[in-house]
């Protein structure tokens, strides 16, 4: 069940320090990397089937291929370390225990897209982790692993760490790039066809920390070695998280396709205090909630969760036991979305704050059946009428929670 590729060094003492990191395989993929052409590296990653771990599961290779080759403008790799999806705390494990793995991944990935400068956008609250990563970057520069000639090879790479300042929406890739350009973190309108991200009009790639940290293994061991794990459509592993009422909360690296209930019961130890599981959200707050009796047969991969009416998201599961009152959970989530809407789209700005207000009224015992109907109709307003998928996430919450726990909601209204 547990398969350590990215988390291999997490338990090694001082694994964040360059000396220890090097003794434990870090930067050992680079010799092979530089014996390959950038095109061959991109091809290797593409064949590995590596999918993005930031929530969307997009193919990394397909995304990298959007960068024009050759490009008449500089190209950039932008690493998404904004990690603010509720229930998600995986990237920080890489930053804390193995920052050199991320730097190695950045070198491999930048080389593949012929970029000479990578930016890492880290959420503002992660001060400890930003310091740890900056120390690792400084060590890497000093050792000649970054800079004009990476490890003596004819390849130049700069890495710059950029701190956010408290805005969930900056995790959305185009909002992140806006923020990196010094603006408010407003998501951009999606282009009609697939395009690279544009950082000051230069073609760029945005990938999650864990995605980039998965690349060195693929380069060193080859795409087939990565495909030996996981499923046909979801090769490899992912850092899955458990939080909430689970007995053993934490981050565990699993092969895709692992049985969800086994993970919860064997590794998670079941619910704490011997309570029963009531419901869970599979991958961050934005996924459809699943009731305990819907979990039979679910495996941890994009296809299985989709077939069961939810999504894998970031793999950060939030588990709730039988004591939880669902309307309170929904209010809590609405407050989050109300606070974090960037405010650009009217349906989102107004719809989310209205949902939050209505839910507050209902929870206080002042709501009517009509208020619940209004809430359900707001889901229509929020779905598919906005610039980014933030507003639809709120629609999913309204639909899935109210439909699955009808009695609890209707018990509150007159």
């Amino acid at each position: 069940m547990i398969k350590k590729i990215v988390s291999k060094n997490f338990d090694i003492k001082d694994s964040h320090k360059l000396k220890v990191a090097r003794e434990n395989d870090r930067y050992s993929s680079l010799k092979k990397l530089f014996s390959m052409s950038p095109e061959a590296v991109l091809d290797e990653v593409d064949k590995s089937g590596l999918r993005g771990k930031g929530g969307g599961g997009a193919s990394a290779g397909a995304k990298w291929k959007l960068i024009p080759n050759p490009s008449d403008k500089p190209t950039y790799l932008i690493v998404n370390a904004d990690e603010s999806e509720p229930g998600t705390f995986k990237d920080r494990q890489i930053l804390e225990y193995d920052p050199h793995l991320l730097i190695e991944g950045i070198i491999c990935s930048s080389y593949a897209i012929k970029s000479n400068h990578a930016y890492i956008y880290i959420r503002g609250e992660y001060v400890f982790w930003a310091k740890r990563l900056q120390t690792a970057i400084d060590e890497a520069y000093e050792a000649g692993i970054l800079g004009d000639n990476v490890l003596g090879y004819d390849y130049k790479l700069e890495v710059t760490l950029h701190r956010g300042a408290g805005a969930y929406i900056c995790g959305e890739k185009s909002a992140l790039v806006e923020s990196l350009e010094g603006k408010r973190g407003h998501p951009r309108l999606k282009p009609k066809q697939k395009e690279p991200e544009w950082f000051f009009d230069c073609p760029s790639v945005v990938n999650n920390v864990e995605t980039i940290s998965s690349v060195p293994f693929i380069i060193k061991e080859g795409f087939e070695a990565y495909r030996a794990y996981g499923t046909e459509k979801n090769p490899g592993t992912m850092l899955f998280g458990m939080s909430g009422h689970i007995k053993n909360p934490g981050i565990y690296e699993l092969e895709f396709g692992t049985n969800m209930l086994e993970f919860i019961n064997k590794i998670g130890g079941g619910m704490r205090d011997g309570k029963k599981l009531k419901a869970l959200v599979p991958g961050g707050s934005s996924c459809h909630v699943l009731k305990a009796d819907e979990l039979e047969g679910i495996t941890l991969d994009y296809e299985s969760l989709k077939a069961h009416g939810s999504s894998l998201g970031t793999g950060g599961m939030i588990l709730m036991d039988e004591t939880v009152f669902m309307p309170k959970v929904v209010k809590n989530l609405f407050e989050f979305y109300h606070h974090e809407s960037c405010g650009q789209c009217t349906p989102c700005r107004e719809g989310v704050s209205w949902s939050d207000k209505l839910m507050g009224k209902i929870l206080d015992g002042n709501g009517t059946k009509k208020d619940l109907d209004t809430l359900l109709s707001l889901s229509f307003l929020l779905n598919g009428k906005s610039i980014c998928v933030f507003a639809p996430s709120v629609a999913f919450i309204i639909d899935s929670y109210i439909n699955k726990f009808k009695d609890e909601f209707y018990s509150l209204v007159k």
Partner: protein
Amino acid sequence: MSFEFNEKNEDKFQELLTRYPKKDSLMLPSLWMIQYQEGWISPEAMQYLAKKLDKSPMDIYSVASFYTMFHLEPIAKYNIQVCKTLSCMLRGSEDIKKHIENKLNIKTGQSTKDMKFTITEVECLGSCGTAPCVCINEDYIQNTTPQMIDEILDGLK
């Protein structure tokens, strides 16, 4: 009251100019430097930054006010940020919040009279596996209990 970068920050600003395709990107790093230097971001500092980045003061304000971690007014010495999002709520963040409110005798959103403590509610801090999480200034407290809060707050000068 006027503002300018101290020498260390000016050096850092010059170095950062070489690390981005355009100087617009220096917005967030500069706002951070201002806040570390002064404790908050004053209108004077925004005017100063506007000149340095060839922008209008309104541009600076528009960005600074978008990000919750930038303080546009002076705040207390210790900012106690209690995470209230789902994983923390499930593990007792409300009790922790009430404990801090009772201890300091203020409500969330308020500061003590001596401007030593402010209590703020914040959204997910990325510490859900070690919930409940409280962040005092920049330090995370994880698996927080009322006893831990007592020990830490009593130890702060």
